[in-house]
């Protein structure tokens, strides 16, 4: 059995269960695995813990799973763009664990690399460090943070071959390569599917060892823009 699946539902078959921890790549709506999020919504799986930098917006990204109340807890760094999130949080229906963005990235990187904990200066002297062990190194205080390993990671890549070797595009890379390393199973959606050898091995960002399953985005796959910002053209 190869890594390639015909669609998102098939790519997630047998992997989803209530109460699991899912890692999702993306920053804002940039580089999010929308196809896989939609398939998780369709599956009806509940009580999820989601690790993702953001929580999408009300009608896109992980916001889709909040609408259907499939999420019990978010581990994120910034959720300011999602009103559904605010409502459910204030009503006590949703748990949130805020992590500094760099601590979140490093917790995932560490988890993926088999490192159970590490020390960082980030958050020392703030609420983030409360209840966590601290230690002094070279006269500075550091706080201990734990690695994260999820049950499932869902990620988005620009190009991938059937071996699962992946390349990302511009700032759509963001959390995707780290998330790919830190779950028992990683499922990637790719915009462009190619054959082994078509990607220069020097250019591969995520080697296929981290990717168990693969699905290609259908034609017309939509990538939304959250804050369309432009400048006027100079007049000649």
């Amino acid at each position, binding site marked *: 059995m190869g890594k390639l699946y015909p669609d998102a539902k098939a790519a997630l078959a047998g992997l989803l269960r209530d109460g699991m921890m899912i890692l999702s790549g993306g920053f804002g709506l940039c580089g999010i695995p929308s196809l896989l999020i939609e398939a998780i919504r369709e599956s009806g799986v509940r009580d999820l813990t989601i690790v993702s930098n953001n929580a999408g917006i009300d009608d896109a990204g992980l916001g889709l799973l909040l609408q259907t109340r499939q999420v019990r807890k978010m581990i994120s760094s910034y959720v300011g763009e999602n009103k559904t999130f605010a409502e459910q949080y204030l009503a006590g229906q949703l748990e949130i664990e805020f992590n500094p963005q760099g601590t979140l990235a490093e917790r995932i990187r560490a988890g993926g690399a088999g490192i159970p904990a590490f020390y960082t200066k980030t958050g020392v002297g703030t609420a983030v460090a409360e209840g966590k062990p601290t230690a002094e190194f070279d006269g500075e205080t550091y706080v201990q943070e734990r690695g994260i390993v999820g049950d499932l990671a869902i990620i988005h890549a620009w190009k991938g071959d059937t071996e699962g070797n992946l390349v990302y595009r511009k*700032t759509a890379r963001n959390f995707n390569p780290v998330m790919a390393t830190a779950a028992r199973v990683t499922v990637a959606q790719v915009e462009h599917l190619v054959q082994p050898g078509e990607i220069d091995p020097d250019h591969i960002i995520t080697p296929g060892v981290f990717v168990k399953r693969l699905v290609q985005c259908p034609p017309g796959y939509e990538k939304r823009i959250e804050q369309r910002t432009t400048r006027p053209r100079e007049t000649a």
Partner: protein
Amino acid sequence: MPWTRDQMAARAARELQDGFYVNLGIGIPTLVANHVPAGMNVQLQSENGMLGLGPFPYAGEEDPDLINAGKQTITELPTSSYFSSADSFAMIRGGHIDLSILGALQVAENGDLANWMIPGKMVKGMGGAMDLVAGVKKVVVLMEHTAGGKPKLLKQCTLPLTGARVVDMVITELGVFRLARRGEPRVELLEMAPEVTLEEVKAKTEAEFTLANA
């Protein structure tokens, strides 16, 4: 006359040096990009995974795969590079970024910074702010001097901290203050906006400060 937001940004831009890698926060700090002196090589870092931020795109040329940390569409430059969030924060936390300019709700006279939450209001999250203030070599706060008539430069922060003893400099519409991150807490008023009086600054500042050249 107190400085305008743009003049505050221009003053902050005087902290830039040739060859600097700089992270600009959302709000007034973003305006600093418009005041980089001609001929000076400054690379802007965006914590979502890019060095060498270009200007906003022309209408019709927006790319959903190319945004800044405020989720706005941007463009790339010949010097640009892309990297993962883990590499981005290795730059920030590893001390490879020279300057961070960001906003604040409160700054204390010992350099404590609060800029991420107000208890009782909806909490949005700290994003990369705690990493930036803990890891970047120099931290400059660009903020309004008061909020609702109340001082923001205080003896002690009353809001939850973003970082303890992390602020090197505060620039407001009234003037520029230098703080000490180590040793005895010390706030020095370095300069004032034109026609702003020392009395006005004192009246609107809770923190104790001295005059830098006194």
